[in-house]
């Protein structure tokens, strides 16, 4: 036996897939196929039928598969073969999934705009299949964004069902999963639709500046005040400002950034549900951490500066600003709002993990992270000397934190990037990790039961 090439084992065989599992996955595949045919179907009636049949097969198949896979086993951590199956370890299925997802985003963002005659490019039939739903909810015609919102919400709900099966032994995971499902369905899908139905501005109560950067741009504030009317408009602007500038620091002080990132946010909601099978793919290396810091804080600085400049421009004090700030805002919207958060953020789930956007790009996460690190009661406590350095905590960390570096030194984990999903605590086989909102005194206290090997690992 030669181990000179370091810790490498040949890839062992994955247990055979049972007939039931194959059947359920076939339903998922047929659902996707049915949705694909919609795009090419000239017959609107048949397209609509295929659309709903496709969604039914896709959702039913996924939920049935989740029950089969996780629900029949005794409740507990179920990560068998995670790194052995190609679909969850950057195998060919994962690459295919990434290409399809990325392709969908490219088509959605740049090739599905209304041509002025109600034609939405390749997604046209899919958009029109949702016409009755859009009319019922929003009292207005369907468009590509309504299609996207529907798919997005469905993904959170169906894969949320999967997460509920998978993590049913943990009340923290159950409640958190229900929370992201609720905020996506109720606050980020139904409520904005209802506002439109009442001829009000489409507004997302669960997205705040600087993630939803335009909410504190002067243009949007003007529009909300005008279209929202004196009552609602003022309230919406007030909500934007208070949530971003007051509630965010206060809630983060008490609970850490998790109150938003893994309980409320829609991006986080998709990551925690649809992205859960890919959470272990996030890079835990020191190099990745360095890139994270290099990218995310400049993005935050940029959007803060841009917002300030826009207000300065709007105030009329510096007329020369207008021609600079407008293109800057457009460029930011394209590069960060569309390419980074959508195409890369979700499209690369199967290759780089489910939090690429949250970790490297989201200015809200950067803002919350600074608060969490320097101005919060939140920490993940480690339990005395019980850590065995097994690495399960680092493995499941979607934010790429090498959790065991802290646990094996008996140090609490206080990291700007931690979204508090709690999976490290759930996956720890020795009961070492616990998310706590303790007093700020002694927050960095190292366990006396492990003598800290204070070498250069963490800084």
């Amino acid at each position, binding site marked *: *036996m030669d*181990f*000179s090439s*370091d*810790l*490498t*084992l040949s890839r*062992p*065989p*994955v*247990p*055979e897939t049972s007939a039931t599992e194959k059947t359920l996955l076939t339903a998922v595949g047929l659902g996707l196929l049915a949705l694909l045919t919609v795009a090419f179907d000239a017959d609107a009636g048949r397209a609509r039928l295929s659309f709903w049949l496709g969604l039914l097969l896709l959702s039913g198949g996924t939920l049935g598969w989740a029950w089969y896979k996780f629900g029949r086993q*005794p*409740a*507990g*951590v179920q*990560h*068998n*073969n*995670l*790194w*052995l*199956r190609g679909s969850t370890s950057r195998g060919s299925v994962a690459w295919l999934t990434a290409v399809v997802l990325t392709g969908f985003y490219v088509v959605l963002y740049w090739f599905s705009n209304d041509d002025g005659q109600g034609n939405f490019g390749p997604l046209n039939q899919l958009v029109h299949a949702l016409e009755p739903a859009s009319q019922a909810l929003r009292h207005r015609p369907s468009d590509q964004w309504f299609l996207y919102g529907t798919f997005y919400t469905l993904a959170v709900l169906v894969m949320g069902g999967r997460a509920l099966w998978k993590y049913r032994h*943990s*009340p*923290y995971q159950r*409640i958190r999963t229900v929370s992201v499902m609720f905020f996506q369905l109720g606050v980020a899908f139904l409520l904005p639709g209802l506002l439109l139905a009442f001829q009000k501005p489409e507004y997302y109560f669960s997205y705040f500046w600087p993630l939803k950067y335009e909410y504190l741009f002067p243009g949007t504030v003007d529009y909300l005040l005008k279209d929202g009317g004196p009552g609602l408009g003022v309230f919406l602007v007030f909500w934007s400002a208070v949530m971003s500038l007051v509630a965010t620091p206060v809630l983060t002080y008490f609970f850490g950034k998790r109150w938003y990132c893994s309980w409320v946010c829609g991006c986080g909601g998709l990551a925690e549900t649809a992205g859960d099978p890919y959470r272990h793919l996030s890079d835990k*290396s*020191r190099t990745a951490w360095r890139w994270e810091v290099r990218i995310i804080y400049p993005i935050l600085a940029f959007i803060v500066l841009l917002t300030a400049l826009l207000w300065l421009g709007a105030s009329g004090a510096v007329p020369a600003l207008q021609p600079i700030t407008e293109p800057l805002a457009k460029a930011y919207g394209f590069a960060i709002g569309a390419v980074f958060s959508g195409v890369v953020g979700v499209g690369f789930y199967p290759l780089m993990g489910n939090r690429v956007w949250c970790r490297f790009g989201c200015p809200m996460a950067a803002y919350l992270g600074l608060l969490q690190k320097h101005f919060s009661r939140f920490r993940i*406590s480690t*339990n*005395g*000397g*019980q850590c*065995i*350095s*097994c*690495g*399960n905590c680092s*493995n499941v960390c979607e934010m790429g934190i090498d959790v*065991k570096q802290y646990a*094996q030194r008996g140090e609490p984990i206080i990291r700007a990037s931690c979204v508090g999903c*709690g999976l490290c*605590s*759930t996956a720890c*086989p*020795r*009961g070492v990790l*616990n*998310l706590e909102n303790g007093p700020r005194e002694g927050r960095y206290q190292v*366990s*006396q*039961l*492990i*003598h800290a*090997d*204070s*070498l*250069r*690992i963490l800084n």
Partner: protein
Amino acid sequence: MHLVIIGNGITGVSCALAVRRLRPKARITLVSDETPHHYSRTALMYVYMGHLRPQDIKPYGDWFWPENRLELVHATATALDTARKTVALSNGPHLAYDQLLLATGSVSRTFDWPGQHLTGVQSLYSLPDLEQMHRHTHGIRHAVVVGGGLIGIELAEMLHSRGIAVTMLVRDAHYWGAVLPPAEAELVDLQLRQHQIEVRYRTGLAEIVGDADGRVRAVRTSTGEEIECQWVGLATGVAPNLGLAATCPALATDRGILVDEYLQTSAPDVYAAGDCAQLRQPAAGEVPIEQLWYTGRMQGETVAHTICGQPTRYRRGPWFNSAKFFQLEYQTYGRVPAILELGEESCYWQHPNARQALRINFRPAQNHAVTGVNAMGIRQRHEVWEGWLRTGTPVQEVLRQLGKANFDPEFFRRHEADIIRSFTQQLAALRTTH
């Protein structure tokens, strides 16, 4: 100073890190023939089950070693000369040392069963063992695991994850009979049943039967039963690895390398720690050979201080350990023997769902001081229990503050009220019987 450490397990590495901290300029060399880099032995099972990749069980990145000037030598230490203060290596010149730490770990223990050298029969201790298990369990239907301890149940869980049917042979009347009281063992047995593991209690291995190709075909048990299988896991404990020590007559050995309370061997400037060391005079009620990840780490840290000129006695402090039996977590602090010791009493609570339980032992004659706790499916805070055990806190006081020790995640159901009610009744019943 040149410190040479034989073994890159948790003991050797803990010592190396502590010495680097205490003596920033020391030259430190770690010698191992198992792997080029330190890895977490306790995590081997997760690699087999596909939870982790092999590289994920390395506690430190590969950059860590050169950056902290820890020299790694991937070779077998073949002979030790304490007079010349050198170690012979399998693939290079002799290594001269000023101080030497033997942290050679364990070897799996077997009992010369007929057929134990057949292909498909093995133990699980090292990464090469895991690789072998991985090859020999490829595509098999049925495996037998011999031994009802921690490694035995780990093997069962590993095999189960690949859909391989498992029969466990357990010599005692219940699981981990030397350590767990019967009530806790019953909870583990439920886990085994829920995961379709067949267990034969009060049954040992008599013989392993091979086929014409020298592969295992079946085992015969002490009760005369023949069980067909294609792989046999021997999980019957480990013994100190004395391979290198045996090359040096100056080193006194018994079952392990004999050391004093400073972990110093009979040879000058040679120390031994971790699984391979045997304390000449263990403290009352303590074992001379400690074979845990935790004790390895503590012994490694302790001996580092002595090596750096700060002679430090090995004082482990209250015992603690943890494990996970399929989906059932277990933590223990202090001592909870399988059979109650004279002068001790025990209170035990179990949830009706058989997934949570708590046992607290105490000494009525010593002001009801607590002596140990077993927590099944409930996480307990190490620091809190350490404090209670060190100060001999009365069990009544522990019950009053029991919530302080809870380490379960948020929103988990708290059982303190039920536990306190049950324990109060048990304590009252004890008073009336005495």
